[in-house]
């Protein structure tokens, strides 16, 4: 029974509880420059600065490593090579033992750190690295996916996922379409580059400030590198200046080098990479080649699919297996694929080792199937949206994924209905077609694409989290958990959960740095799981303390526990007492009640058998849809996004302001991946887009002024997640696929939508102009009467698709 006073008294309204648009806890510190990042920590006396020395070939044996000039350079204190690693020279996150801190004899990519200099100043360290005399015996370098496939060069075994008999389904399909799609990678371009700051402790221990999404793994790997137990290493991170997956495993090397120097010299050691070194030496989003063969009926419904991925993993496995798996898991995106076989090759190349990036392979899987949807529509002369709707997961018989999980929570039909109503898509598409008919240079395009993204680490054991909550005698709360803050607003969301649980205002809760000494054995803050798991763990910790307080109050006042209620700022003990939270806490302390608790959470229901590629790897799915409109200059390939409508399902939002930030930011980041962000290596395997001057993430003007973002008001998680919210970190990135499809729509208009644009990613002006040119030529050939030839010639992606797809059934690469 609600006390009317609770409602009317202003002090009884909880400030900053769950569902409020609380501001980012660090906002005021961000805007004043007072937020402390690792490079801002006041340096202890004697701090050394480290810089890496890089290889200048892609693959080869080091025949001479003369560092004498490096060692004698001004300010240099020590120089590390592989010989200086006290423990195990390996930092591979999946224990594949293929990733040395520093290479022992063999260089595996251009730019790989070969040695490391520690000097009195950072400038001295950087200058000294240029004095090394290194000679190599060059070995053949594999610099492309195709070369790796041809040589069966893999970092892990190929993997297959299948349901039904795809070969038969394809053979009997009324229509078939086969093509190849090339999907580019992406640099994370977190604004704060990699940095680790190791401070030596007694007993040869080390304390590391590390800009990482995975402090526990840094701890364990650095312990191995140092040859010490895990308890000799403590890792702390208060905040990162962006992560996006780039700091899930890639922090390890710099933490290792700084730690070795700290332990070896007894002096604090800081390693902050220059932006160019960061982009040369750390992994990126994987580039892919996808070969597909699709069978479909007259309505555009897919009845059979054969899809083969080849993934450029770089020189080591890193997380590539899980990433390539997630691409397979998202081959379907939102669609029932009929009989399907999906194969995946994890190619080993002499390039930097690719790694996690927001979406973790999901975007690459999704962007391919979305292109396929458009190609089916074009073949049948249908609106692509209708083809998508026709292929949505449905009722029994059409609700099983290629990995044999039943889709139980599909909200796309409702989302589609709502987005159609708010965008006026059909009328705009017709208007655009009319515009294009009379505009010879500038063409417009529009597309709607859905997102269905699986939530949970597909490596099941990672789905666990811990938290630590202390309540002090004055009622203030210290909150800690295993999640890390990279800007995504995790800390404020979890604090809101704790505020809600205790019914105390948010400003009573102190958010503290993630520290392996407080919460051990944590998983990476990744897979969009941060708030789901750490929120639940923190709630469980708070609930434990709350239960103790209730038991204490029940005993103290002689009131049944069921009559004790936590209301904003206060605790009502039946009608016997009404005390502030702080008063009760103080009494409980005096009554010798523990006011500190850990909390733990393991995601329920999930299981997955990788051997049979079947199970329920995801607790639930996150859904969203976007409608994008673009303009393309068909003389230059330049393009501009002019309007975006987003409807995204975050369940019941923990914090709508934070969630909106994730959706919009993710969308723009995805748009960059698919448009301006192009990674480019030269013939020597040397990346030439290694700084913002050459690698172009979206700038302010790329964000369309007409940007209509709504969190879906009907959103609610059918699973018992924290306050029925949904994960939001990664899914919105893939909403940007609508931009790529809208560009393709505009491009296709130059040839009257008769030929597939076969647009790869990123759709740079060059890629777009190439597609425009090809379509124009095909249309001209058609006009000359060679209709069949023109269609058969297809486009870049489809070129030779017939022959290529013969290889899909029996891959040239072999399994």
């Amino acid at each position, binding site marked *: 029974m609600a006390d009317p006073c609770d409602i009317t008294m202003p002090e009884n309204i909880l400030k900053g509880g769950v569902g409020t648009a609380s501001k980012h806890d660090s906002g005021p510190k961000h805007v004043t420059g007072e937020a402390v990042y690792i490079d801002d920590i006041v340096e202890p006396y004697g701090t050394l600065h480290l810089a890496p020395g890089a290889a200048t070939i892609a693959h080869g044996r080091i025949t001479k490593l003369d560092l004498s000039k490096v060692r004698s350079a001004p300010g240099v204190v020590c120089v590390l090579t592989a010989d200086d690693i006290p423990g195990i020279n390996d930092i591979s996150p999946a224990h594949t033992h293929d990733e040395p801190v520093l290479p022992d004899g063999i260089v595996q990519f251009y730019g790989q750190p070969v040695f490391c200099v520690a000097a009195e100043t950072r400038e001295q360290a950087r200058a000294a690295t240029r004095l090394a005399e290194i000679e190599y015996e060059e070995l053949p370098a594999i610099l492309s996916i195709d070369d790796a496939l041809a040589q069966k060069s893999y970092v892990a075994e190929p993997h297959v996922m299948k349901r039904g008999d795809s070969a038969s389904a394809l053979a009997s399909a009324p229509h078939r379409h086969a093509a190849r799609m090339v999907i580019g990678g992406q640099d994370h371009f977190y*604004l704060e580059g990699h940095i680790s700051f190791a401070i030596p402790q007694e007993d040869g221990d080390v304390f590391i400030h590390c800009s990482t999404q995975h402090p526990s793994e840094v701890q364990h790997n650095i312990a191995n590198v140092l040859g010490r137990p895990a308890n000799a290493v403590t890792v702390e991170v208060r905040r990162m200046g962006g992560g996006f997956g780039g700091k899930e495993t890639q922090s390890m090397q710099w933490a290792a080098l700084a730690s070795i120097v700290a332990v070896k010299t007894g002096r604090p050691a800081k390693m902050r990479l220059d932006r160019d070194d960061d982009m040369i030496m750390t992994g990126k989003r994987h580039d892919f080649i996808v070969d597909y063969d699709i069978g479909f009926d007259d309505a555009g419904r897919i009845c059979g699919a054969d899809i083969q991925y080849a993934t450029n993993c770089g020189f080591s496995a890193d997380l590539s297996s899980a990433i390539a798996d997630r691409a397979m898991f998202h081959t379907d995106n939102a669609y029932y694929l009929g009989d399907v076989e999906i194969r995946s090759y994890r190619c080993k190349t002499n390039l930097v080792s690719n790694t996690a990036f927001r979406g973790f392979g999901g975007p690459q899987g999704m962007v391919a199937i979305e292109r396929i949807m458009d190609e089916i529509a074009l073949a049948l002369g249908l609106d692509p949206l209708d083809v998508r709707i026709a292929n949505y997961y449905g009722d029994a018989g059409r609700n099983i994924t290629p990995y044999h999980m039943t889709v139980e929570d599909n909200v796309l039909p409702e989302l589609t209905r709502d987005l159609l109503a708010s965008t006026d898509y059909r009328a705009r598409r017709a208007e655009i077609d009319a515009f294009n008919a009379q505009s010879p240079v500038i063409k417009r395009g529009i597309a709607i694409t859905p997102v269905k993204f699986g939530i949970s680490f597909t490596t099941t054991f990672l789905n666990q989290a811990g938290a630590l909550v202390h309540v002090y005698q004055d009622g203030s709360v210290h909150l800690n958990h295993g999640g890390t803050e990279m800007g995504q*607003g995790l800390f404020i969301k979890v604090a809101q959960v704790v505020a809600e649980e205790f019914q105390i205002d948010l400003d009573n809760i102190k958010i503290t740095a993630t520290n392996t000494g407080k919460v051990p054995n944590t998983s990476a803050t990744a897979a969009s799981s941060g708030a789901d798991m750490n929120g639940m763990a923190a709630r469980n910790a708070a609930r434990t303390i709350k239960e103790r307080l209730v038991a204490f109050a029940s005993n103290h006042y002689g009131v049944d526990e069921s009559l004790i209620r936590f209301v904003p700022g206060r605790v009502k003990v039946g009608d016997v007492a009404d005390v502030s939270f702080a008063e009760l806490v103080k009494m409980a302390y005096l009554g010798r009640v523990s006011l500190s608790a850990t909390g733990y959470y393991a995601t329920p229901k999930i299981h997955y058998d990788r051997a049979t590629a079947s199970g329920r790897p995801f607790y639930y799915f996150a859904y969203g849809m976007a409608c994008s409109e673009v303009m393309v200059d068909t003389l230059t390939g330049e393009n501009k996004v002019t309007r975006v409508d987003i409807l995204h399902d975050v369940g019941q939002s923990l914090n709508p302001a934070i969630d909106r930030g994730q959706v919009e930011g993710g969308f723009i980041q995805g748009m960059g991946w698919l448009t301006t962000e192009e990674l480019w290596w030269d013939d020597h395997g040397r990346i030439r887009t290694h700084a913002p001057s050459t690698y172009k993430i979206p700038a302010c003007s790329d964000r369309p002024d007409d940007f209509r973002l709504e969190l879906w008001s009907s959103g609610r998680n059918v699973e018992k997640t924290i306050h029925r919210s949904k994960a939001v970190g990664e899914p919105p990135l893939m909403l940007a696929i609508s931009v790529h499809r809208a560009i393709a729509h505009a491009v296709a208009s130059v040839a009257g939508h008769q030929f597939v644009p076969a647009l790869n990613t990123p759709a740079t002006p060059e890629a777009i102009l190439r597609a425009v040119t090809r379509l124009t030529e095909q249309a001209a050939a058609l006009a000359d009467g060679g209709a069949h030839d023109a269609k058969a010639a297809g486009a870049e992606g489809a070129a030779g698709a017939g022959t290529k797809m013969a290889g899909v059934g029996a891959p040239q690469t072999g399994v």
Partner: protein
Amino acid sequence: MRSDIRFLLGNEERRIENIDPQTTVLNYLRLTEHKCGTKEGCAEGDCGACTVVLGEVDENAPGAMRYRTVNACIQFVPTLDGKQLLTVEHLKGADGSLHPVQQAMVDTHGSQCGFCTPGFVMSLYKIWLDGGEDDRDVINDALAGNLCRCTGYGPIIEAARTSGGAAIDDAVEQSRRQDVAGRLKRLMAEGSGLEIDHPGGRYFAPRNSDELAHILVTHPDAVILAGGTDVGLWVTKHLKRLDPIVYIGDVADLKFVEWRDGDLHIGAGATYSAAHEALGEVAADLGELVRRIGSRQIRNAGTVGGNIANGSPIGDTPPALIALGARLVLRMGDVRREIPLEDFFITYGQQDRAKGEFVEKIIVPKPAGSSQFRAWKISKRFDQDITAVLGAFAITLEKGAVRDIRIAFGGMAGTPMRAKKCEAALIGQPWNEATLNTARLALAEDFKPMTDMRASGEYRMLVAQNLLSKLYIETTQPDVTTRLVGKVASNG
């Protein structure tokens, strides 16, 4: 000459001796002043995390101040001489309250990871100093040099629109600025230039061009520093020692941008920003081109003269200025010579500039009324990107024929270069599709562009040809929409 660098850090006076002259402002702030609010994101002037505001006495308005944003990561400390340096640490009120732009950023949820935020705050602060802004295009330009990887910019744009602006006419604000101007004037009362002799290198900052000419004759191997938007990277990325540096940013009589006898004269010390408006008067497309060079921070530091003198094969101003028939005045000691701009570029990495000689000014003729000028900058991203292909065309049509045309490209060869065969294929010919097609083919005779990370040679050639087609469409079919950004000039 004087050896101490004098400036205001916020409101605190600094007189610095014994500093390595190639110390960047960013490193000085973070390592010497221990003011760590200003961040290093790229150390090449491309991300804006290190954005600071410089205040200078406005010589044209006694007692007034001029403010501009620059990238601290590629500015050297001695260039602060005589200026006020404002960083994110200086914005809070005396009572600890957030500045309106800071409050707006908090209120709109404009920061996520927060690392780019101090730079954005300083760019927003500059908007605020100018009285605030609501126009999206102006905001885009002001923020083009600040990259954010988290927010997607929406909330930051909202902050720009809602933070309001300084009441410039406000008496308190006026007197505050006058006070700063007065302090700077007193600080620099002697009027002498700066001369630093440090073990790390020497640095000269003469105050007039005669002094400059003399120093360069004495030190013919000196690195001439203007905005530092290129030279800064020699230090931060190539780890070069520059000795001596001769800074021309304090040379008062090289900063002119003025019309003389119908020609625009631009002193070598004039920044892009200073010359922007006048260049837009020369031709609308030239103004639009300058708008898209670098970012506001870069244009506030970089100079048109430096853009020419550094001999970039791309431009961006040289191809456009070549098409317009610009001339260059070079000076060594007291000897001056004037050459057509196109002759300055000999081959990749080599220009027609002797040791001890310097670019003094650029003379840009205003195109005749019958002439039309078009320039297009093609890059992967519209704002703050280095050009893949830049095409510039000055065409005079008469009775449906091409009476005269000058065409120059950047990004198509080792230097900015005229397309002479293409011009020859056009001059005197009827301006029709047949001529266009002939001229397109002629372009392929003029250039053999290279492939690199910005574009393939194939694309460069095709785009160059297509720009010719675009010129044809714009000059013959005014009703056709041809541009995604910028406006088509009605003429000129």
